[in-house]
Structure formats: C-alpha cells, structure tokens
C-alpha cells in the first residue's frame, strides 16, 4: 500500500478545500453541501407541548406545511414540557446553538434580553393592525426601547367553580370581594368542599394567584421607578395576614405542595369547589365528559362556571399567563424565523390555530375578542375579555429583568406560603423585602 506522507495529505486536502470554496461542481461535491443560494433555511421552533393537542396537530399537519410552501423554508417543530423550557433556553443561549425560535412564558424573555434578536419591526406591524397588543403583552415582551419577543397568546386565569356547591351554601352569584369569598369558602370547607389553590413553586397557578392577591390589597413589589423595593407596606402585610386566615378557614391546606396539575386533578375529582386556573379544567371536562361526573351522576361540565378573582381594598386585579416567541440572537436563520412569525400572525393563518384552542388561549391582540369562536360556548365567555384586565410582575414599575428574576425565584409566592405555614405576616413580608433588595440592588 502506498505510503501517504503528511505533505501529500495536506496537499490533497488543501486542493479539495480550495475547490470547495472556489465553487464549481467539483467544489460542491467535495463540500457535500448545496451552494448557499440553493439551500433551504431550516427554522427550529421550540415550544411547550400544548394543553390543547388539536392546536399542536394543526401546527404540524396544516400550518407548518403551508408556511413551508409559502415561504420556501423548512420548519421543525419541537414540543416539550413547559417546565423544561427554561433549561433548554439557558443551554441554547450559553452554547449559542439550538432552536431558532423558543417560547417564553410570562416575562421570562426579559431574563434573556441581551441574547435575543430585535423584533420591533415585526411587532409594530402586527400589533397596531390587529387592534393593538394587550398592555400586559407589551409589558412582558418590550424592554422599554424595543420588542424583544413576539407575543404569541394570553392564557387567562379565572376562578373555575362548582355552581351547585356554591348555590348550596347560598352563593348564587360568585363573591365579588375577598371577604365574601372567604365567608363562602368557610361554608364550603365545612361542607367538605374547600377551595383549592397552590402556593408551591409552579410556573402558572401560584404566581397567577399570589401576585394579583397582593395587588388587590394595594401591595406592590417596587415603586413606579422600577428600582425602589416597596413590598414592605401596610397593604402587603394586611394581604399576608388575610391570606393566612383565608387559607386555614377556606382552603384545602395540602395545596402548599401542589404543582400546576394538582388543582386540575383535585377539581375534576370533586375534591375542591373552586380554583384559579386557565380554562383547562373546563375544557378537559368537556373533552372527556363521560369521565368526570358530579356526585349525583351528571356530567361535571354542566356544573362549572368561571369568574374573575374577587376584588380587595385595592381593587380587582389579575396576572394572566402569557406566551411569546423569542427569535434567538445566535440564530443564523433570523430572517426566515421572523418571516415565519409574520406569516403565522397574519389573521388568516392565526385564526385556525386560535379557534382550535377553544378559548384556552386568547389572542395577543384585542381583535381576537370579536372572533365568533367565543359564541360557541357560554361557559367560556368570561375568557373573551379577561386579558384586558391585569398587571405583570414588576408593578408598580415596568417589567424588567429584575422583576422576571423575582418571579422565577417565587419570592412573592413564598412570602404568602411562609405566613400560611405559621410565620408572622410582618416577618414574611420583611423576608420578601430582603430577597427583593438582593435582586434590585445589583
């Protein structure tokens, strides 16, 4: 066998590389890649595994093939458990490789602001032409100067409750204030049907309950400057005191350990009378109607209604879940990714996805409130305009990286959880103040 010297090897590989870089058929064959102008851009889209399977199916079977045809690109959709999105995002940003589009929950995109592409042009084209984005969506996805993530949808949280059980304790309409809700909850708990809520480290239900609860008493994380920590106030302390008693009087006390799925399960198994949640409880009860029955043998779906959170001394409030799509800064396919999002958020293309959600997700812009889908099921009607009320973490300032960090560390949630577990209200608020100061002082 002929001996290959280092010199001859370098010569051959050098010639091959030169052919590859200088073009020509030989070069193309040697490189094993199509020339740039003939390559199809591939956009890798990473999102959660949608609660509504039909929505992901629509994306896979209809929307993506149509977009590929219309835009001449290839789109790979990957769906994972929502809880795992942050680990994937962090690793992708660190290694500067991974999906081109990644879904962010709530204001999480603020955590990665420096690693995201500017999507201002796209958002300013989509939002105003569709009735404008909800304020909360702008809060989550705008860094004060630019749009850093493209609003995808809102997942409003309302209280799902059992009408018959509320009626049985004399509450023919849903309580309007926390005091009324507590009084009704006490009766329900005495009847063996407590209210159910989580104060655990869950990305959806716990912050969705704790933040607006604090706001509705007049409490706030920071002043309007977005820097001065203001949580240690008379209002917040009152809210914490109220929560401690409210929990004991009216709630299923095991809720401290619940995750986002636990209240769904507790409600659907007839253990709790009411819980703050997205529409998933009701939709699940409709999807498998024969499976979820009331104690007197009726389909549970006929006994479910929705209401907004009661108001407190500081008024009514809400913190709805939301999702946005980040175009990653490291992506070499940013143009194709943005083109796809522009295509997807065109009303004609977005509508089939929106209607497949059956109201679980609302549109990111106000125009979707008028969609005829909302006429299909009166039980879902309260979700139609729910997204128009609400705040985002970081209030009274504007949402930013610090507020997003406080949210992901569950400081406000833990403040209430500590009080429920026996810590004095003043001490738990003081603890939260200390934790927030650590974040906001950096």
């Amino acid at each position: 066998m002929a001996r290959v010297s280092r010199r001859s090897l370098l010569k051959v590989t050098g010639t091959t590389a030169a052919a590859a870089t200088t073009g020509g058929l030989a070069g193309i064959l040697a490189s094993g890649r199509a020339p740039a102008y003939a390559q199809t851009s591939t956009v890798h889209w990473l999102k959660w595994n949608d609660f509504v399977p039909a929505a992901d199916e629509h994306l896979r079977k209809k929307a993506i093939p149509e977009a590929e045809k219309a835009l001449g690109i290839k789109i790979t959709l990957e769906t994972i458990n929502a809880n795992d999105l942050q680990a994937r995002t962090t690793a992708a940003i660190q290694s500067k490789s991974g999906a081109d589009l990644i879904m962010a929950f709530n204001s999480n995109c603020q955590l990665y602001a420096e690693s995201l592409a500017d999507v201002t042009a796209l958002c300013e084209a989509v939002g105003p032409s569709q009735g404008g984005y909800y304020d909360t969506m702008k809060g989550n996805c705008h860094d004060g100067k630019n749009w850093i993530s493209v609003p995808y949808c809102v997942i409003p949280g309302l209280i799902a409750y059992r009408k018959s059980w509320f009626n049985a304790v004399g509450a023919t309409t849903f309580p309007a204030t926390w005091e009324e809700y507590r009084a009704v909850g006490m009766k329900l708990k005495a009847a063996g049907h407590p209210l159910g809520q989580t104060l655990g480290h869950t990305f959806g239900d716990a912050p969705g309950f704790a933040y607006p609860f604090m706001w509705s008493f007049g409490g706030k994380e920071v002043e309007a400057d977005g820097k001065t920590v203001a949580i240690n106030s008379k209002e917040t302390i009152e809210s914490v005191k109220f929560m401690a008693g409210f929990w004991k009087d009216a709630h299923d006390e095991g809720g401290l350990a619940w995750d986002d799925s636990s209240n769904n399960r507790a409600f659907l198994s007839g253990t709790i009378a009411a819980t703050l949640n997205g529409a998933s409880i009701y939709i699940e009860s409709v999807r498998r109607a024969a499976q979820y029955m009331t104690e007197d043998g009726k389909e549970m779906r006929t006994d479910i209604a929705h209401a907004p959170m009661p108001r407190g001394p500081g008024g009514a409030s809400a913190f709805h879940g939301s999702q946005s799509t980040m175009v990653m800064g490291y992506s070499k396919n940013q143009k194709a990714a943005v083109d796809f999002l522009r295509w997807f958020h065109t009303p004609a293309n977005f509508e089939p996805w929106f209607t497949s959600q059956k109201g679980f997700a609302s549109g990111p812009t106000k125009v979707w409130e008028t969609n005829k889908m909302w006429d299909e099921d009166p039980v879902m009607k309260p979700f139609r305009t729910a997204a128009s009320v609400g705040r985002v973490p970081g209030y009274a300032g504007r949402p930013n990286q610090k507020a997003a960090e406080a949210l992901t560390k569950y400081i406000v949630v833990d403040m209430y959880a500590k009080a429920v577990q026996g810590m004095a209200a003043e001490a738990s608020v003081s603890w939260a103040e200390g934790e927030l100061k650590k974040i906001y002082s950096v």
Partner: protein
Amino acid sequence: MIEGARWRRSVYFHLPLVMFVVLLLFPFYWMVITTFRPDGELYRPWNAKNYNPFWTWHPTLEHIRLLVEDTLFSTWLWNTMLISLASTAISLVCGVFAGYALSRLKFRFAGSLGTGIFVTYLVPQTLLFIPLADVIRNFQLGDTPWSLILTYPTFLIPFSTWLMMGYFKAIPKELEECARIDGASRWQAMIYIILPVAVPGILSAGIFAFTLSWNEFIYALVFLSSSAQKTIPVGVVSELVRGDVFYWGSLMAGALLGSIPVAVVYSFFVEHYVAGLTGSVKG
C-alpha cells in the same frame, strides 16, 4: 440475627423488615395500579362511596395503548438502551483502568488525583450541562446519541473509578505479587489475576452506571431535540404532560415499562452486586 424470645425476633426483625419492604415497594405498586386503573377511577373523589385508591375492579390497558401507539415509546426504549449500554461500557473500561492505576501504582499525586476524580463527581449535572452544551455544539453532536454517549461518562467515570479503587484496594496485593514472581507482566497480572477477582466490583459499577444513564434527564433534555432521538425519561415527560394536565395513567405506564429492563439487570446480578458494594473478596 436477633436472639432470644420469639416475640423479640418479630418486633425487632420481622416487623421492621416488613415495614421497610412495604415502604420501598409502595411506589412501585402505586405505579402498577395507576397504570391499570381507568381514568374514571383515577379522577374519582376520594370521599366517594366505595372509593379504594389501592385497587381496581375495572383494569384497563388503555394507558399502555396510548403510550405504545400514540407516542414513540419503543424508539425511546431502544435509544435509552443503546445510550446506556455504550456509555456504561466506556465508563467501565476507563473506570477499571483508572481505579487499578490509582490503587496499585505508586506515582506522585496518586492520592490527590483520586480525590480530585471524586470531587468532579460531586459537581452537579444541573451546572455542568451549560458548559457541556458548548462542547456538544463545537463537536456538532447535538441531537445525536453521541451527545449522551460521550457526556454521560463525565459523571460515570469518576464514580466507577472511585468504586473500583476501593475494590482493588480490598484485593490482597500478594495475589498479584505471586503472579509477578512467576513471570507475569503487570498487564498480565492485572488481566488474568486481578480482574477475575474483581468481577463483582466491576458488575456493581456497571449496574450503577447503567442505572444512572438509564434515568438521566437533564443532559438528555438539553442535548436532544427531535422526538425520535429522545430517551424514555425525557420522551415520556415531553409527550404526556400537556400544559397543566398530566396523563397519569400513561406516565405511570411509561415509568413501569421503562423500569423493567433495569429491574431485570438487577435481578440477574444481585448477588455480585451486593458483594461488589460490600467489597468482599473471597481468597
């Protein structure tokens, strides 16, 4: 063994043993019963009449059907098996040689090197996945089984090395020295004398490495993206948790079917495994 009256044996031995066994097996039992309970029972109010969470009178295969037919479970099973076997093999080879060298050969810093290897095992994977993602990107291994086959040894080799070091130290040096006097080289003494004696230790390191690879989650989550490349722990969670609704029956079916290969491996080698962990060497 507890000596004395019969009641003493019952109270101090049998009762704790039964409690221990029940405690350990209960999660497995719960997994089995949830796999076969229909959703109607899983979601039945706990205070409903005749409610019994520990048994089902209407067993169903629906959850297993959903798992096997509507997901890529068989592909995940194959991927997990391939990745676990390959990474275990790599780790064992490295661990055995490194363990032998650190316990038998006299060279500078052997002790501190051994401690250093152990310390690397203590670095949590939840921190390591970030820099490793960089490495995987640079070698263009993302979304391939190689991304796991080559990264799992980062925590398996230190563990195997440490375990084998301890085991080799328990083997009398005289066995090896006799072979050397009879003319065997160090390599021959190691291969023909020491390794056969160390088989229980190698097996226990292998079983541990296999189990750790089989159950690993965070690297598999981060380094694999297409559904057809995923392993059981990631695939099952990705496909059977939808928003805030968990498909408990199928999740438990996935956990049950996924744990069977590990249980089989354990049952085959349990005696060697125990001997390996206790470091006992029969002369």
